[in-house]
């Protein structure tokens, strides 16, 4: 049984500079086992950069990242994935020239035998509701469905921590609802960090919210407290809610 109070992921003083631009500055962040955390913040607040450092797509300029007690700052993406972290990136990253089934199967078959991989693939296809389109090329699907395929590949890898960068972007209302359901279902056993702009979506799923602003953590609290905070309204919500 998992110890739900144990720390799963921790960053300390994480900093990322691009030339003169500081994209992340001194970010210290902690996530517990099986926790669901939402990240919000205006464009350019450094959320995607943060994800890229966690998943190994960027090497931090300084600071540490610890996942399951292991230091992973600067490790290659495939090494981090093997430790049990999965990510859906902001721009859909799928195998466009392969079928939906193959996309999921590639992810499932890394650590399982063929029969088990096939079973996992079927389960995931069912979960993302694409069983009847399993044979279609992913490149032929609508944007929202491709988002699901990507979420499906992440699920099929059975990670302990799932990072979702704007999972609801470009989805219809019905698809957004279904995505929220899937996220809650995943969260029964696994930890998630979700970056999203859609505040309605955040309200559907969020417990604790971390607010990024100008590359730093502005505050971290329950969804209610965050929404009520004047600073958050000033930098982000004020404009969005009014709009």
């Amino acid at each position, binding site marked *: 049984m998992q110890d739900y109070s144990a720390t799963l992921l921790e960053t300390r003083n994480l900093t990322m500079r691009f030339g003169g631009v500081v994209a992340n500055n001194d970010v210290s962040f902690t996530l517990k086992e099986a926790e669901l955390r939402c990240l919000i913040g205006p464009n350019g607040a450094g959320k995607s950069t943060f994800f890229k450092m966690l998943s190994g797509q960027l090497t931090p300029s300084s600071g540490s990242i610890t996942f399951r007690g292991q230091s992973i700052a600067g490790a290659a993406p495939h090494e981090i994935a093997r430790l049990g972290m999965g990510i859906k*990136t902001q721009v859909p990253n799928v195998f466009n020239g392969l079928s939906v089934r193959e996309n999921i199967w*590639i992810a499932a078959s*890394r650590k399982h035998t063929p029969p088990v991989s096939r079973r996992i693939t079927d389960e995931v296809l069912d979960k993302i509701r694409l069983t009847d389109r399993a044979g279609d090329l992913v490149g032929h699907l609508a944007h929202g469905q491709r988002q699901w395929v990507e979420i499906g590949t992440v699920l099929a*890898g059975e990670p302990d921590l799932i990072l979702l960068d704007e999972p609801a972007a470009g989805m219809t209302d019905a698809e957004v609802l279904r995505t929220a359901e899937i996220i809650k279902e995943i969260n029964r056993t696994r930890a998630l960090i979700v970056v999203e702009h859609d505040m309605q979506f955040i309200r559907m799923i969020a417990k604790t919210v971390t607010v990024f602003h100008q590359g730093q953590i502005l505050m971290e609290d329950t969804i209610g407290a965050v929404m009520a905070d004047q600073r958050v309204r000033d930098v982000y919500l004020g404009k969005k809610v009014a709009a």
Partner: protein
Amino acid sequence: MSRSLSTGLQLVLLAAAIAGVALAPQVLEIFTLMQITLFAAMSILALSLGFIWGFGGILCFGQTAFFGLGGYAYAVAAINLGDSTGAVFVGMLVPAAFAAALGYFMFYGRISDVYLGVITLTVTLILFNLINSTAGDEYRIGAAQLGGFNGMPSVPGLNAPGDPSAVLEPEEIWFVTAGALIAVYVILRLVLVSHFGRVAVAIRENETRASLLGYDPRLYKLLVFVIGGAIAGLAGVLYTNWGAFVSPTIFALSLSAEIIIWITIGGLGTLIGPVLGCVAIQAIVTEIGSQQEFNSNLVLGVILIAFVLLLPRGLVPTAQILWSRALALKARRGGAALFEGGPGGKDDHIAKAAE
């Protein structure tokens, strides 16, 4: 086409190919037989690049480097050993090792496609110059004199395994070469349906996604590259054996260009396309050589430009697309879904044009 139908069809075609190879010496003149033996050896070279470029997504402009190394390694080993059995393996191992070393620097350096193409091309240019300059007496490996631009004459031909006195006849060399072509084709097909092959294709589709799922793209690309190097080496062995001669022109820029043309006109992302492209271009070049009316570079250049501009996918993928469109149209008219996208039965159905 459903997967089982496609597999059945492939088995029928395979049987037909084997029957064709077996019957060829009965119906063809010895001169023609030797000509198509050469085409078969070159087709193996076409398969090696068709595999690494079309399925591994590795833009290699210098596949002749491995072809030439295979030829030279075979020649040197066969002269020294006096038996072709081990020499064939040397002719595959040397280029594979060279591909591993070169690939390590390229893939682990994470260089872009453009750089990869240029570096592999440069390798063949330099190997050409290097071998060209080995004319002196001091350039010998054991009993084998490298011979510089004159090349190495009288390379021992293939003999029956383990029996150097039983040198193969032209007819037997045809069986060996064409048999090797079919074997390489079947092996590559099997590799492509294996887990390794599917991951390699996935990496071609999206390297970032594959690495985020826990696969190391560098390692997979390196392995694909090494397999391609070994196969190109085998082609070099058979080519050298065919002419009993090897010279630096085996590394020539014009041959590197020709291979690229085979793949471009046959079609990237298929295995049969490169073979068809190879045979077609070889036939055209042979024809030009005997007519002496046009310069072959001129014709090849025009063909390459025309395909890149007008038919960038190549012949086989274009034919596949037209065929599946025709089927879909028929299905819609008949009101029944004859066409079922076979899950898992991808490989050559994914006609992916050069990016």
